[in-house]
């Protein structure tokens, strides 16, 4: 907008006005539905408001309570555990699937569809499919193996099970990103390396891996941010149970806000989660950048 006006010589007021009018709907919506709520959450975190937003200003009371809240730190640990169980496996599995699909000639579309189809399902359908497959009494896995493993009711198994369902659900998208990355690697590199006598394994480690790394680091960052925001699957599959072993930060926030009616406290939790995600993303971004320049 600025550059266009400058190029046209004297920026006429009429053009400026037209430009602003065009941007206006977006700016109004953006301020109204993003910036204002964000500021409001920051303010609410300093009050003892209920869920309707009525309450007194209490300074940093919420945060001092939060730092001593065992349940909150447990939820942070659970979230970190979930992130650990999903981010790297999801990325690695996406990469493996991409490698498997790319080398196919027959069945290619069929395999691609099989891997990608779960991604288009809504989360509640994913939940239904997971229950029909993994239910303790009627799940097909337990029926076929004759076991009675309580996938979602055993405290030790609940989180890995939810992570497994999440990976099953979302790996297709990572696979697509990796396939796009693999197809962007020029064929000439492989031909030249083959002429120089590089083995298949060497071609993989010295051509594929470094050239796919930008895609991999992008997927890792996206995954990290996405998985910190875990809520839907937990809410549907375990509701935080068994014995609160799968209570994640957002579920804890939801409970505080909508079940306990502590709006201010929930706002404080939300801000802490934002802080955690920002710190984790920055740390990861730095680590990946360093790896990239040395690779």
């Amino acid at each position: 907008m600025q550059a266009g006006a400058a190029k046209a010589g004297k920026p006429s007021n009429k053009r400026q006005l037209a430009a602003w009018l065009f941007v206006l709907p977006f700016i109004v919506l953006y301020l109204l539905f993003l910036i204002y709520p964000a500021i409001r959450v920051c303010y609410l975190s300093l009050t003892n408001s209920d869920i309707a937003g009525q309450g007194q200003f209490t300074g940093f009371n919420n945060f001092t309570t939060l730092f001593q809240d065992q349940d909150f730190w447990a939820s942070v640990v659970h979230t970190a555990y979930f992130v650990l169980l999903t981010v790297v496996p999801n990325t690695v599995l996406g990469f493996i699937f991409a490698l498997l699909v790319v080398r196919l000639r027959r069945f290619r579309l069929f395999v691609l569809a099989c891997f990608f189809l779960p991604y288009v399902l809504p989360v509640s359908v994913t939940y239904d499919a997971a229950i029909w497959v993994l239910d303790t009494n009627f799940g097909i896995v337990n029926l076929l193996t004759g076991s009675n493993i309580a996938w979602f009711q055993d405290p030790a198994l609940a989180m890995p099970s939810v992570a497994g369902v999440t990976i099953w659900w979302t790996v297709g998208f990572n696979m697509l990103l990796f396939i796009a990355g693999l197809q962007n690697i020029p064929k000439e590199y492989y031909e030249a390396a083959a002429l120089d006598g590089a083995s298949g394994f060497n071609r993989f480690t010295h051509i594929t891996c470094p050239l796919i790394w930008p895609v991999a680091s992008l997927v890792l960052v996206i995954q990290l941010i996405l998985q910190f925001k875990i809520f839907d699957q937990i809410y549907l599959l375990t509701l935080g149970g068994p014995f609160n072993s799968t209570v994640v930060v957002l579920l804890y926030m939801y409970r505080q806000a909508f079940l306990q009616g502590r709006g201010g406290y929930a706002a404080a939790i939300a801000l802490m989660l934002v802080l955690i995600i920002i710190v984790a993303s920055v740390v990861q971004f730095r680590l990946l950048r360093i790896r990239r320049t040395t690779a």
Partner: protein
Amino acid sequence: MKTGRFSILGFLCTLLTLVMALAWIFPVYWLTITSLKTEDQTIVVPPSFVPWPPNFDAFVYVLQNSPFIRWYINTIVVSVTVTFFCILFALMCAYA
């Protein structure tokens, strides 16, 4: 990448890919055929993998006992509205 020769390793890789793909699609398949079973069939041991003849009672039940069409219209209204205004405002921003 492509050698054109038949290799054991390549064959095993393809086989693994197909097995993984079938395992990946299986929950969706299972969900679909479960919807075509009667209530008793869904929990029968051993489970049947191809319920024949298919039973559409569940679909009939859903359509008759819930305002399913209404829910569908709601979904369509929301998605079309959101798409329309998203494109409209984004287009205006890009034009300005």
